[in-house]
């Protein structure tokens, strides 16, 4: 019985976690796609950093890779998380704080004024400064030890002028509390939902960021696979609290229209060869590649779930058969043991039906007890049992990449009341099935023969 209960519990939890992952992934991909489509005129420019000897940087990543930590299993996807989201100010995008700003190199703000003045088709150049805050951790990799940053939050400084804020999508849009940042705001921050937990603060509260006090003006919803930990404030505020006055980490160039984006990007590259220039189209391409990776992962996850279900089905079938057989044999034995009693009962005037129903009841009672014990065992041992009996979906398919990002939804097995009811119902059914034949046999016993039986 414990097995019969644990397996469905395990399947349900596996399915649930797979579904959650699927939902999160497709949500995020859709959202990012939408955002990118809206900002096809947008070109991201960051300063390439070249740190000799840091061989572990992802091979085809262009902007990060510096002193920041690039997870090895992210490299293969051809997608650099830091480029999305934080650098462009798109909430809900991939990346988040975890892998982002450590690798971006500060650029002198004034050096790039020529982009706007000399290149045709540039509508606006929005500089931004991104600073990650957290605790440094020593880590060993490939025989060398590095310091990595465990990011608590990421400060994103954006020039809050009416030109930038009102005309270009540089701020999050899904405000869940308070209001968004406005032109002229200073001394205020827009937190992500994850930030509110970290700072233990909400709209109207004041928080300390790098020893300066800020008022929380609003909160935006974070969604997607990654936890968004980026908080937004005025660029000057960000520069001054992080001692980066005059410096930025990225430039977002908006082209006049999507037709000239490529030309503008080429022009920027030739004007400033040191910059890494990424157009919306390129980001879309990267996203497509990532999407394919995710879809492959999802497919294999679904395949695993299907396989799990078929394994589970077989296991349940075996458990059901075993339970029925056990009840059958126990009841047959009981009937044999009590042949004389049955004979006596019939001799003193019990009907076949009464005898049969009594043995049926006993069988059902037996199974109900087994069911109750099974539920008790399952409620303690279900995770272990289903872990033993079922292939694990979340770990084998998604690997560390997804589970680590998604640790909140790892399989936790719960026994729902429905499952318990179904289990007890199943127990009664099996008890009835298993005791049907023995009970029938008991009732058909000829009393005269039964009496002779010792």
């Amino acid at each position, binding site marked *: 019985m414990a097995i019969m209960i644990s397996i469905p519990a395990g399947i349900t939890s596996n399915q649930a976690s797979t579904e959650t992952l699927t939902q999160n992934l497709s949500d995020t991909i859709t959202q990012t796609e939408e955002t990118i489509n809206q900002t096809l005129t947008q070109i991201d420019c960051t300063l390439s950093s070249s740190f000799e000897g840091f061989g572990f940087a992802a091979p085809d990543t262009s902007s990060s890779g510096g002193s920041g930590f690039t997870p090895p299993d992210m490299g293969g996807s051809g997608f650099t998380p830091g480029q999305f989201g934080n650098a462009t100010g798109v909430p809900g995008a991939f990346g988040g704080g975890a892998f982002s700003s450590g690798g971006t190199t500060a650029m002198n703000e004034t050096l790039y004024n020529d982009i706007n003045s000399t290149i045709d088709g540039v509508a606006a150049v929005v500089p931004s400064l991104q600073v990650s805050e957290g605790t440094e951790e020593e880590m060993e990799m490939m025989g060398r030890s590095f310091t990595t940053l465990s990011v608590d939050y990421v400060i994103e400084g954006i020039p809050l002028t009416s030109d930038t804020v009102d005309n270009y999508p540089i701020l999050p849009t899904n405000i869940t509390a308070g209001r968004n940042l406005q032109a002229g705001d200073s001394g205020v921050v827009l937190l992500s939902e994850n930030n509110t937990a970290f700072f233990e603060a909400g709209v109207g509260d004041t928080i300390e960021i790098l020893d300066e006090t800020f008022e929380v003006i609003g909160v935006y919803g974070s969604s997607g696979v990654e936890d968004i930990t980026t908080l937004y404030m005025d660029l000057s505020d960000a520069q001054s609290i992080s001692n980066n006055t005059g410096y930025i980490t990225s430039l977002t160039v908006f082209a006049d229209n999507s037709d000239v984006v490529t030309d503008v990007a080429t022009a920027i590259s030739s004007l400033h060869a040191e910059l890494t220039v990424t157009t919306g189209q390129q980001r879309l391409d990267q996203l497509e590649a990532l999407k394919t990776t995710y879809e492959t992962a999802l497919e294999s996850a679904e395949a695993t779930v299907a396989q799990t279900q078929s394994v589970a089905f077989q296991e349940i079938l075996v458990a059901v058969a075993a339970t029925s057989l056990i009840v059958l044999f126990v009841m047959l034995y009981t009937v044999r043991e009590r042949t004389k009693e049955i004979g*006596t009962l019939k001799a*003193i005037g*019990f009907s076949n039906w009464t005898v049969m129903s009594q043995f049926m009841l006993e069988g059902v009672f037996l199974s109900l007890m087994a069911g109750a014990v099974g539920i008790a065992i399952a409620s303690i041992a279900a995770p272990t049992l289903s872990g033993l009996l079922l292939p694990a979906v979340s770990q084998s398919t998604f690997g560390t990449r997804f589970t680590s990002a998604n640790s909140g939804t790892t399989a936790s097995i719960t026994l729902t009341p429905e499952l318990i009811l179904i289990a007890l119902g199943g127990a009664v059914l099996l008890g009835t099935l298993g005791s049907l034949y023995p009970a029938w046999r008991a009732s058909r016993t000829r009393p005269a023969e039964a*009496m002779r039986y010792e």
Partner: protein
Amino acid sequence: MSEAVLKLENLSKTYSLGKRNVQALSNLNLQVNKGEFAAIMGPSGSGKTTLLNVLGCLDKPTGGRVLLDDVDVTKLPEKELYKIRRGKIGFVFQTFNLLPYLNARENVELPMEGTKKTRSERRQRASELLGMVGLSGREEHRPQRLSAGEQQRVAIARALANDPAIILADEPTGNLDSKNKYEIVRLLANLNINQGTTIIMVTHDSHIAAQTERLLFLSDGKITKEKQGRHLAKKKLTCPYCGSKTQLGDKICPSCKKKL
């Protein structure tokens, strides 16, 4: 003219043991009247138990009729027979056959289950019957806490539960020592005399059989001899301690002065 409770007409029963057919009962005719106490005697294999099983509707005869209270029970289907067994017949077995997980009173209540009697009526009736067989105060005892003789008394009380037309006792004293044997036979005799209960008792024991008023000798499936019991006809019984004759109503044996 006495009223016939049981009438057997040309009763036959053949068992097939492999290829061989065994004639357990052959063309047996018998009438038992209301209020009779009959003993059936005979050697092993003479058909005593077969006869009792057929009488008790536990077994079907292969020929002839069994009229119980003028109803031919051989024609009844199984789903009617259990009512006959419950209401018309009381069984007393050699091995008592009490249910070990029920106490004395519950064992006596058992045949009343499924009848119209309420729970409290059944309870009261069971207590009365246990009192009648001399087991007042032992109602809550399980069979294993009762002596063999006491267990058989419980079984007799159980047989009487539904006021049956006839008590069928299959070697009721077979598993008892001589003291208990006489106690049980006195109990049956008292029931017969005082309550008018019709009793048919199968026994091996000629001393026990001699306590009854009618002795039937069975041999090869036929009643070969019949005679009058010596004592019960004269309302006399045997003292279980000294073997001397006692009156049915005696509380103390007149010769050995022991309490009966």
